[in-house]
């Protein structure tokens, strides 16, 4: 259900960097812990992006696994369910190493061809 708001944030970020140019492709980097449903995000991005420079852009999502580090033994492991407990040390402080990303990684934009040459001399 949060995908709609996240879509608005993505579209705003993408269009800011597009600087008026048409966007053809968007690459996102999203951590597993963000609980983002990709199909829903794609659906909303199409709606929110309509009539903006990123209308019709294709979407690519780089999925970042959830990796934790134990503060006590420095052990690192990947989780598939929300269990933030070290298997060796038991309940205690663990840090999230990756999995909380919510980044616009890159965009592909259309440029005027040889813009430099067509500039008035």
């Amino acid at each position, binding site marked *: 259900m949060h995908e709609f708001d996240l879509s608005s944030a993505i579209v705003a970020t993408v269009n800011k960097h*597009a600087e008026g140019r048409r966007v053809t492709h968007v690459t996102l980097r999203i951590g597993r812990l963000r609980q983002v449903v990709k199909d829903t995000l794609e659906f909303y991005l199409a709606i929110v992006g309509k009539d903006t420079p990123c209308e019709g852009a294709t979407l690519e999502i780089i999925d970042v696994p959830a990796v934790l580090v134990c503060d006590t033994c420095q052990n690192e492991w990947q989780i598939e369910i929300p269990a*933030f407990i070290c298997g060796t040390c038991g309940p205690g*402080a663990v840090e999230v190493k990756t999995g909380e990303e919510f980044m616009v990684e890159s965009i*592909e934009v259309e440029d005027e061809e040889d813009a430099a040459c067509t500039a008035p001399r």
Partner: protein
Amino acid sequence: MHRTKVRVVEDALDANNTIASANRGDFDRSDVTVVNLMSAPGAGKTTLLERGLEGLAEEGLRVGVLEGDVQGSFDADRLSVLHIPVVQLNTDNGFGGECHLDANMVRSALPAVPLAELDVLIVENVGNLVCPAEFRIGEDSRIMVCSVTEGEDKPLKYPLMFRACELVVINKVDLLEHLDFDVDRLEANIRQVNHHATVMRVSAKTGEGVEEFRTWLKDLPARVAAEAAHDHEHHDHADHEHAPA
């Protein structure tokens, strides 16, 4: 036409976080500690405030409430008997509004909040277990209220929310005798996703555990200041280590 790849590498929530930092600056300048209070709809946020904030001014803590709601001023009206500053912030466009508060909405409401008269501002977020966890509003601390009518597995279903808070208030414990609810299991599930959180068992209705909540709130400004001083010291130390010889 020719296509260019533009490297962005920017958190998509940066725009919100920038405004949250501006809010934080305003709060810090007025020396106000800000709490983001979150829960599912109906968990008892407003009842907890009604009971928990009563008479706190006489005990030396000046608290105000920024009341976020999809629609109406029902909650603000309920709190008006406390005779503390309460500001209503609706996310409504006429037919129901946003499911959460973001930094910009809070910013738009700030001119109405008498920051200079407050020690603590509690921002009561819109009832929702998902979206409010995504949007920082410039708060110092986050409280989540969950009630014993919601199910023991909620921390595992909404880890983003449960991981984000410093205090989890388990509310409506007066109902436990009528329910098939294992409150120890709920607490174990909270621990599984958030080892750091303080957990309290409260009945905002009977008043059980409310004193503990009030104490937590009264101690909060000093605790936040101590953490900030510690972070600052740590930061200075790190700067020093990296300074050229």
